[in-house]
């Protein structure tokens, strides 16, 4: 049984799972091959109108990571993803997916890549089952005789077994999204690309997608997930890349991004000048003196030693807090405040 199973809360209409067909065998956690699941260098896309949608992006997505691809709407995320998936041709630069050049190697490599790009897209006049059968039949790398097992497993995984015969046009928004995820997981994958997977979902749906991402990652599959909301993916990502007006302005481990948010200490005191002197003696740079308060970057200094020194110096302390800039603040700092204002 695959570990990639949605929590039961997602499958409102789930039937008893029964025995999962052996189409989705457990896999070793870290597949051999290139260290980077996605690598690009100087990837650039200029639209016909002259607009630079993606500007020299050098992506490095390590194998086995959950890579959060962040940026406001219109920052070039989807265009980048379209180039990675061979849907759009780069103006210049190159990209490799699972070590294979794109878009030249698209047919060769994409059967190992599951994707959800800009929302679900299915044939409204076909049932959920027939829709998956359609995509399955289009895949030249899989055999027909195992199709039923594949489709059944995929539908079961997202809790759509009961709605399999229903026409897609009668699906709810959440069901459509789940069917798209089922399609992305039809065959065993090495990489899953999810473009705004939580768009249009309610908070519960968002949580379910997060749980799913965690489970996919637990199988050792690299996940590349884009979002314009940091909060949606910061809990699941190991790595992040931040886009701003077509440029990759940050890339690295999430922890590294967190470290750039240096914590500050804030002392509430009626003697701000004396407090600032103490902080300066402790080696905190440039304490900012405010109205009955002093703040400074904490650095390596322990907050408790600050307390002790303040008391020793006879500074009257009313309150002392350590404040970390939230990732959200950092994100906004990287990408700018408004959406689309710079375009």
């Amino acid at each position, binding site marked *: 049984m695959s570990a990639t199973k949605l929590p039961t809360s997602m499958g409102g209409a789930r039937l008893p799972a029964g025995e999962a067909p052996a189409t989705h065998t457990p896999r070793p956690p870290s597949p051999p091959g290139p260290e980077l699941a996605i690598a690009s260098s100087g990837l650039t896309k200029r639209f016909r109108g002259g607009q630079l949608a993606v500007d020299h992006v050098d992506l490095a997505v390590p194998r086995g990571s959950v890579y959060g691809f962040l940026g406001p709407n219109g920052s070039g995320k989807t265009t980048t993803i379209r180039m990675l998936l061979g849907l759009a041709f780069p103006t210049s630069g190159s990209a490799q997916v699972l070590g294979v050049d794109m878009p030249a190697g698209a*047919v060769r490599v994409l059967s190992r890549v599951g994707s959800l790009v*800009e929302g679900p*897209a299915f044939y409204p006049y076909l049932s959920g089952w027939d829709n998956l059968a359609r995509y399955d039949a289009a895949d*030249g790398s899989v055999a027909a005789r195992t199709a039923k097992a594949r489709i059944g497993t995929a539908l079961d995984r997202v809790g759509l077994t009961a709605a399999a015969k229903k026409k897609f046009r009668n699906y709810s928004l959440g069901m459509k999204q789940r069917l798209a995820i089922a399609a992305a997981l039809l065959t065993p994958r090495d990489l899953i690309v999810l473009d705004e997977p939580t768009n249009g979902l309610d908070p519960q749906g968002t949580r379910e997608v997060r749980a799913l991402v965690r489970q996919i990652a637990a199988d050792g599959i690299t996940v590349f997930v884009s979002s314009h909301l940091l909060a949606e993916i910061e809990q699941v990502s190991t790595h992040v890349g931040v886009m701003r007006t077509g440029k990759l302005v940050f890339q690295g481990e999430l922890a590294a991004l967190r470290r750039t948010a240096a914590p500050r200490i804030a002392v509430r005191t009626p003697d701000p000048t004396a407090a600032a002197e103490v902080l300066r003696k402790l080696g905190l740079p440039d304490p900012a003196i405010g109205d009955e308060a002093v703040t400074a970057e904490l650095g390596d200094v322990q907050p408790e030693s600050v307390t002790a020194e303040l008391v020793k110096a006879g500074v009257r302390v009313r309150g002392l807090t350590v404040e970390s800039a939230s990732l959200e603040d950092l994100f906004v700092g990287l990408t700018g405040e408004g959406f689309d204002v710079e375009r």
Partner: protein
Amino acid sequence: MSNANNLETPRPAPPQPPTPVSPPAPVSPPPSAPVSTSASTSAPTTTSPNQEISPVGRHFTMRFLRNELRITFFRRRNQLLLLVVALFPLLIGIGLKAAAPHGGGGGSGPGSGSAAFFNQLAGNGVFLTFIALSLLLILVLPVVVAILAGDSIAGEAGYGTLRYLLTVPAGRTRLLLVKYATIVAWCVAAVFIVSVTALVVGSILFPVGPVTLLSGTTVSLADGLVRVLWVTLYICAAMAAIGAIGLAISTFTEHAIGAIAAVMILVVASEVIDNIPQFATVAPYLPTHWWNSFDSLLRTPIDTTTMWHGLLSFLVYAALFVSIAWARFTSSDVTS
């Protein structure tokens, strides 16, 4: 779809058409590869099971085609279209039966166009086939073909399913081939439905027997039916050429309706120009010019020259527009 490639920099080569043998990837044996241990122990293996099965073989293309055919012919809209096509011979048959002069005037000598067929009909129900085909050829059959062909790529783009088919990956060339094969199958189905229903209706409403041809000679019923078959196949070829034009136009837009309308405008324009004597010099190069040339099959001896001209014209149009579709589809961005 819109082609958003920059003109300043060279465009990357279009994706290679799928070939039965794909070269081994330089890197990356896939994860689920217990086989690789036996393949090589010292050096990292350069082949992978995924690459062994991923080449798009004929077998798997047939599976894709079967699925496409099933979706096409089971789609309610398409079934209704074929039903409407089948109703026309019935209506024409009933109308002509009601208007037919009593006593019949079979074998009234050579004629041209469907007018000649009308004279023959009262004498032989087989002629309802030729009447129905030549009448439906003007507008109904091209519409039915244009709907499917114009929808083929543009419809997928409109639904957004095109991006998912390509990331499955279906392969651009392979998808195009499957689409065109389905269009051809659709043309054959539509034309044969006209022929068969016309034959059935004709044999019910009118006498059936040895067939008197337009040249005045009489051939056996079996010979007549063989000629019906040839005429039907000839029109299938004509429709397949229009289907190729529709496929090509379909790769330039994500609005199926626009592609369908464009094909129809093209057909009607071609028919109009074909009927203006001043354009006689370009007439033979029009896509619709040879459509009615099948009437030489209804004379003895059969004058095959015009038919070969017609078939050559259809072949050139099909090849040209499938090539245009391929060039466009394998080099443009999918933005839907």
